[in-house]
């Protein structure tokens, strides 16, 4: 393949990663924005989503499409409920102290990961995509008769990958509408601005926190369900995903939704492109160093504005 089609292929792969990452990171960003806590177990909720999708797909018969839809409904709800329960039993009791929350969620990370290892096992398992037709993509070329389209060998994507991109975009839009247009979203934003004042106005802040923690985890689980037909479900898949979401949320500015989306596209695309052309380890080293330096020198993120 020539350079042009190759680059386009890399960008398509990057776009799938960016879409999933944006969905997952917006959950992390929501939790941080409203509750001011960093959820280190976020990657494990993503992994749980993928693993549960495998379980559900195997329990529900009736074809790949029905199994997938069942997984996409059940897995995020179950993971969200689990996270809300963890919030009420653990985080509430340590009063959402930022540092102790990190220590407790590290503990939660290992508990979820290791229980998955004990029940689901150490194998990576696939879930069949609901539809998966191969779509060959055209590339253009200046020929003797001007611009000509042709289909280079190997330049293709699948309908499922395009669906992942579209689904992530729709879901992120839905979260945004939920936060800006519904009463529940209004209550969450009020809690985010000033939790004490929200309490004074009769908002049950602790229940809001449990709901936000659950929704954040549910978004990660949805991302896990979406990715599992492309990648396989494995009990250690949360680690890299967590690191990438951290990178995205920090570069985008902690707690800023719009910044998170922009950063997810930037990081996802560049990760896709860099991993195709360079060593993925080198790309990761540069990304982690970049994040550390952003936090040191521009704590508001590359796209955020300074807090008032």
């Amino acid at each position, binding site marked *: 393949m020539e350079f042009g089609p190759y680059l386009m292929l890399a960008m398509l792969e990057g776009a799938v990663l960016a879409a999933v990452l944006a969905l997952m990171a917006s959950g992390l960003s929501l939790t941080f924005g409203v509750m001011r806590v960093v959820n280190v177990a976020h990657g494990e909720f993503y992994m749980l989503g993928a693993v549960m999708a495998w379980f559900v797909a195997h329990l529900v018969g009736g074809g790949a499409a029905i199994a997938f839809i069942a997984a996409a409904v059940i897995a995020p709800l179950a993971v969200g409920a689990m996270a809300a329960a963890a919030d009420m039993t653990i985080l509430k009791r340590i009063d959402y102290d930022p540092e102790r929350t*990190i220590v407790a969620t590290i503990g939660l990370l290992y508990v979820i990961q290791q*229980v998955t290892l004990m029940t689901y096992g150490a194998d990576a398992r696939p879930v069949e995509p609901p539809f998966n037709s191969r779509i060959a993509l055209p590339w253009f070329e200046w020929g003797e008769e001007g611009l000509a389209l042709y289909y280079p060998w190997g330049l293709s994507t699948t309908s499922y990958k395009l669906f992942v991109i579209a689904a992530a975009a729709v879901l992120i839009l839905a979260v945004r509408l939920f936060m800006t247009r519904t009463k529940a979203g209004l209550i969450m934003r009020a809690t985010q601005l000033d939790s004490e004042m929200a309490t004074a106005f009769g908002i049950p802040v602790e229940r809001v926190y449990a709901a936000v923690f659950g929704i954040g985890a549910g978004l990660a689980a949805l991302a896990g369900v979406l990715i599992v037909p492309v990648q396989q479900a494995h009990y250690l898949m949360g680690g890299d995903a967590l690191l990438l979401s951290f990178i995205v949320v920090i570069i985008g500015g902690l707690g800023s939704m719009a910044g998170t989306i922009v950063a997810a596209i930037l990081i996802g695309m560049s990760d896709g492109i860099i991993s195709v052309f360079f060593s993925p380890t080198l790309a990761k080293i540069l990304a982690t*160093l970049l994040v550390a330096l952003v936090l040191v020198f521009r704590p508001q993120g590359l796209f955020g504005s300074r807090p008032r």
Partner: protein
Amino acid sequence: MSRSLILHLGLIAVLFALNFVLPPYAHGNIARVMTLAVYAIGYNIAFGYTGLLSLGHAMFFAAGMYGAGLLLRFTDMGALPAYAAGLAAGGALALAVGLLALRTAGVSFMIVTLMFSQAVYLAILYFGEWTRGDEGFVIASADRMIAGVDLAAPQARYLVAWGLFSVALMFLLWLVRRPSGRVFVAIRENEDRARLLGYDTFRLKLLSLVISGVISAASGAAYAILFGYAGASFAGVQYSIFPMLWVLLGGAGTVIGPFLGTLFMFYLIDLSSGLTDAYMLIAGVALIGLTLFAPQGIAGEIRRRFWKDLP
């Protein structure tokens, strides 16, 4: 002699006596626990005494481990100079990381240290040609000699680990009773007030982090030389979480706590890994349980209930 000096010298004496009575398996385990407890002591200086909650101490441990291990692997340098180089590597890395990371605090500090440590881990994988990445490399026993004493032999290994542990423990006891040790605690309790009293808190925190890094590297380098192996897993996130777990369990901000935490956790994980592959489950449950029910840890509880001025 004060009560606390008797307690810590007593612990050292007991560990020395154990050298002659322990059965071989426990003998090797305690040598390992003492080496790792030095890591916990180093972590405790930053976290327990100065309040710097780092999630990246594995990079200092690894700096010591690879600083010493790579020199032994590729040069004819003796074990002692290689050990010193490991310490220097840990100190230099702590200085560089501290200059950047200490511009942040709290949650940001945790994430910055985590990211730097991750970068070090990935760098070890990236330079796999020399470090052999995840697989790691074995340090030949011919290189593990100090003054003709073979450190691979159980007796010598135990005594060297014991000596290192004793020095680290007594150093910490000495440090926390000095004025500068007390200022570390003042910074942990209220940094603004310490600054108001005229202390240069940035420099003191940097000092604390460098001491902590050097001691962590001392443990990493000793581990490489005594147990003859260096691998990338020692630089991973898990080895940044372990010292935090040990210190939280034993009691943050106590001199004896890091050893108690390391000892208990080591045996807890050792026992459970006989039963299941998912032995890190114990670590997770312990972390949650400690944050919820016993944020003071073992020695912290002893201090609260029986012994008010336990250092």
